[in-house]
């Protein structure tokens, strides 16, 4: 089986500081990978390098494209990479405001990716937008409202709908539940889990919340100071952490 995404030796320096160093892994179709670590451990740098938002200093990110098979996205041309960014890839930002157009209605936000890939029938775009609002549990009657009138949880769900409408195969998520209260978090996680399973999505989730990876991720990487210190199946890493830092991380979770 060909990996959907194959990461080889990704390294990114900020001057003399290490962003992330020599990270390699394979992600297979339908698999969800969690990346955990404390603030400043290089999780987001790694995610941005993989999603093409940052240019890594060294390494390759090989994606199994629909047309040409496995291809290195670091060296591919920018139009190709941006095309991937609005078709086969999706990126869910921590702050919904970064991923949404706040001055555009919910329907327009969801429809943007459709229009970007050439959809030119207003009725169809609107129907698909309404359908997706329904799938992320937003009332279809709010299709013409701006995201500024939505609550934080709704904005995050809208961002997810906007990203998934073109049927991507790989979703990058940067702390998707950050800044939401626990009950809203639980509903969002439930929704994400359902969508990931229904659509057979592969996902890479960056978070510092171990509960999120426990629920969503099949496999887990623990990062510290820009390097991967431990990787394995989620339950294995969380229940029997080997590296000192992983042990610290797991034992730091508050038990209620």
């Amino acid at each position: 089986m060909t990996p959907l995404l194959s990461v080889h030796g990704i390294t990114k320096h900020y001057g003399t500081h290490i962003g992330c160093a020599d990270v390699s892994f394979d992600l297979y179709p339908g698999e969800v990978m969690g990346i955990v670590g404390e603030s400043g451990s290089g999780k987001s740098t790694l995610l941005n390098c993989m999603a093409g938002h940052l240019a890594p200093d060294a390494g390759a990110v090989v994606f199994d494209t629909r047309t040409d098979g496995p291809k290195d996205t670091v060296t591919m041309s920018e139009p190709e990479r941006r095309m991937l960014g609005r078709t086969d890839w999706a990126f869910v930002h921590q702050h919904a405001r970064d991923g949404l157009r706040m001055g555009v209605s919910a329907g327009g936000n969801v429809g943007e990716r459709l229009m970007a890939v050439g959809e030119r029938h207003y009725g169809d775009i609107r129907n698909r937008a309404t359908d997706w609002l329904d799938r992320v549990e937003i009332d279809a009657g709010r299709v013409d409202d701006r995201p500024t009138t939505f609550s934080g949880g709704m904005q995050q769900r809208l961002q997810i709908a906007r990203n998934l409408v073109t049927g991507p195969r790989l979703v990058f998520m940067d702390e998707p539940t950050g800044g939401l209260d626990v009950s809203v978090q639980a509903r969002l996680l439930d929704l994400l889990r359902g969508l990931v399973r229904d659509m057979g999505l592969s996902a890479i989730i960056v978070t510092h919340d171990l509960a999120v990876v426990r629920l969503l991720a099949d496999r887990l990487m623990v990062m510290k100071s820009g390097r991967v210190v431990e990787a394995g199946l989620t339950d294995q890493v969380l229940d029997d952490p080997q590296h000192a830092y992983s042990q610290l991380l797991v034992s730091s979770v508050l038990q209620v």
Partner: protein
Amino acid sequence: MTDYNFAYLDEQTKRMIRRAILKGLAIPGYQVPFASREMPMPYGWGTGGVQVSAAVLTPEDTFKVIDQGADDTTNAVSIRSFFERTAGVETTTDTSAASVIQTRHRIPEEPLKEDQILVYQVPIPEPLRFLEPRESETRKMHSLEEYGLMHVKLYEDISRHGHIATSYAYPVKVEGRYVMDPSPIPKFDNPKLGDMAAIQLFGAGREQRIYALPPYTQVVSLDFEDHPFEASKADQVCGLCGAEDSYLDEVIIDDAGGRLFCCSDTDYCLGRRNAGHQGSSLPGNEVAA
């Protein structure tokens, strides 16, 4: 003649602007940056158009200026006298007699010919500006032909108003490549942009951009399959000359809510009246409205 160099600008500046114009003509719809000069008028009054006109004018030219279609408004009168003084060129209000026409927000009703140049004054040349504020990003979108966002604007129009409510500065696609802002002309004029015999030049002074449409260029107004583009105008006839096919201004004429629809193109209207056409609002022809 005055102590000014011909047409106010110095020869090096005109040369620089002509190079930008040639580049613009070579890549229809592409916004060419140029080093816009301070002109003796405020930004927003047509500094871009004036610079382009200055660069293309020759002593043999006949010059016409229209502002919203009219030859007799402040902007048109002052720019016309500016070039009378600094270039000493012939000026006219007759569309067919002019070789260079500078316009603000209209295309003349009378079809233009191959030996004419139409110069537009452009306030904001970037059609994506109000959707994407970053210049670096809009440039990238133009170079990679990522124009999905333009349709988001039209989508928003339909979802809010039930139809595409953008009625001026309606975005167009040039030769299947660049999306262009046609300057704030009414969308009634959009169909005239394409396949025009005259050269069309667009100058934005404050934003320092020049773009152009060579003669007989394909220009398509953006739309949706189920909401096609429609060139709209007031559903009236001209009260002065009775024209049914021209773009109309609505003029309030008294304190009792009385109003008059008349051609925004004053030269076209006058030409029709001189040819004997009469509208219902002329003295002696009034009908009870």
